[in-house]
């Protein structure tokens, strides 16, 4: 059996990845503290409950990323000849599914509270001999839960684009978009203080819708990756032009008459095949080896492209029916 060669990041990308790992550790600690603070102030508010669940789930992407980073130096072996890069995609899929399901659960829960006209209870708490309204503590906790992720999200996005990491990138986009749900929860608590019983459950429902959509978006990304969809740049929704660039690179080689390339995404890296029609068979294997080296060095995200010489591009290798 032929096992793939291990993938090594270029030195500058390795440094960028080191920064991203440190950033994700900070992110994990900050998120963990937010989860704790919200838990301590949650009470029986639906908006707080929804925010809390959202924050608990926001722990999953950094954990998935950091666990995947543990395995990134593991070389492909006989059991897994294509390597372990896709572990991160599986982690990504799991967080997407849990986000989607939890959003649905929270939505049903919030709407049922609205329908039953349940009145939210936010009482007082006695701290150092003074009894204060819990709502004020909840607001403070929500502000704490909203602003740090916004700032972290900005840095995460930049760092994730640098090393083409989907898990962190979608996490960053979510954290940046979550200030709206934070605001919804704050409005919900302020509304309860005004004596509007529906404000809390309504805010909870809005947050639940947001969580569900986040899950759906991540789910589409993860399924796309696992289905070997055309690669996309992390920052863009459009397919990457890399395949076309590789084709024109091949066509410019003197021994190549025609060429087609197909690529797939494997976690952080791309792999694929190039079908080449040689203009002559002279030194064919030497030419192919040189071209393969050139293709694999073209972009740092390319892990392995296999070159296949074919008599013409219409030829199919599938068994005849």
């Amino acid at each position, binding site marked *: 059996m032929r096992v793939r060669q291990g993938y090594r990041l270029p030195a500058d990308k390795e440094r960028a990845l080191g920064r991203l790992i440190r950033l994700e550790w900070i992110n994990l600690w900050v998120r963990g503290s937010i989860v704790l603070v919200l838990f301590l102030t949650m009470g*029986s508010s639906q908006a707080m409950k929804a925010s809390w669940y959202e924050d608990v789930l926001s722990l999953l992407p950094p954990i998935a990323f950091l666990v995947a980073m543990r395995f990134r130096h593991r070389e492909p072996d006989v059991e897994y000849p294509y390597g372990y890069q896709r572990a991160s995609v599986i982690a990504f899929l799991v967080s997407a599914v849990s986000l989607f399901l939890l959003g649905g659960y929270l939505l049903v829960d919030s709407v049922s509270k609205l329908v039953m006209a*349940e*009145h*939210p*209870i*936010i*009482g*007082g*708490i*006695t701290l150092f001999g003074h*009894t204060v*309204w819990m*709502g004020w503590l909840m607001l403070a906790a929500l502000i704490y839960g909203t602003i740090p992720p916004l700032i972290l999200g900005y840095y995460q996005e930049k760092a994730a684009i640098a090393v083409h990491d989907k898990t962190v990138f979608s996490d960053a986009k979510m954290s940046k978009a979550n200030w709206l749900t934070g*605001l919804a929860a*704050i*409005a919900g608590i*302020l509304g*309860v*203080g*005004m*004596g*509007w*019983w529906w404000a809390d459950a309504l805010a909870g429902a809005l947050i639940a819708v947001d969580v569900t959509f986040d899950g759906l978006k991540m789910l589409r990304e993860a399924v796309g990756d696992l289905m070997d969809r055309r690669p996309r740049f992390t920052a863009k929704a459009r397919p990457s032009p890399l395949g076309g660039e590789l084709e024109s690179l091949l066509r410019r080689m003197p021994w190549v008459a025609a060429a087609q390339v197909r690529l797939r995404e494997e976690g952080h890296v791309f792999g694929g095949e190039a079908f080449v029609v040689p203009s002559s068979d002279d030194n064919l294997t030497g030419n192919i080896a040189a071209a393969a080296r050139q293709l694999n060095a073209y972009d740092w995200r390319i892990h392995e492209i296999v070159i296949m010489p074919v008599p013409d591009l219409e030829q199919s290798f599938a068994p005849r029916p």
Partner: protein
Amino acid sequence: MAGGRVVTGWCVGALAVLLLAAGCRYPRDVEQTLQRVQGGVLDVGLTENEPWVVRGAEPGGVEVVLVRRLARQLNARVRWHWGAESELIPALRDRQIDLLVGGLVESPWLMDQVALIKPYQESRVTVGFAAGAAVPPSLEGVRVAVPVINKVFLALRDEGAIARRYADRPPTGEPLAAADWWLRAHGYRPGPWTLITDKHVVALPPGENAWLLRVQKHFSDAADVDALLRAETGGERRHEG
């Protein structure tokens, strides 16, 4: 940038709401219970549970004293309604009564049904020893008298003690499981073990958050709960004697 303007707009709006809120009472009740009670009538549900709520010609007990004091502060007249918890809790949910007292202790089940204040008093239930008797280092194999109806049976078994149930009055001179204030009032020495902790609360209609905050302030600010307990349990002893 349009997005920036929207954010600024939101912040200004939120600030305006806050300032408005600071102007009037905040938080407010959904059904204005606090406003209605002030200078009006306070409907209180009662379940008998000595020494917290004592049934008599006039209601008595620690919690009744505290409620009377609250009503005086609010300039309200109290109407008492005796009943079972199973009647009074639905009545509370429907806001037929404004407050329910009856030596209630905090429980997840109760928290699901109604609004509870934060516990204003904790009772440590332990094993007491008669004056003169030595307190053993552990409860392993110790015979402890408990009432027929009790919550400490499992906790006693975990400590290795042998629970002996009594029907009417506790056998004199034997180790006895009860709340520490009860043990002290009856001349027992409480042991160091905590079998269970009862967290005492009163219940209110859900969603009446201004009323909840007012009642909670009143109960947590009461500095003389221990003194009231001593007075009530002392009274009980006189009944027995």
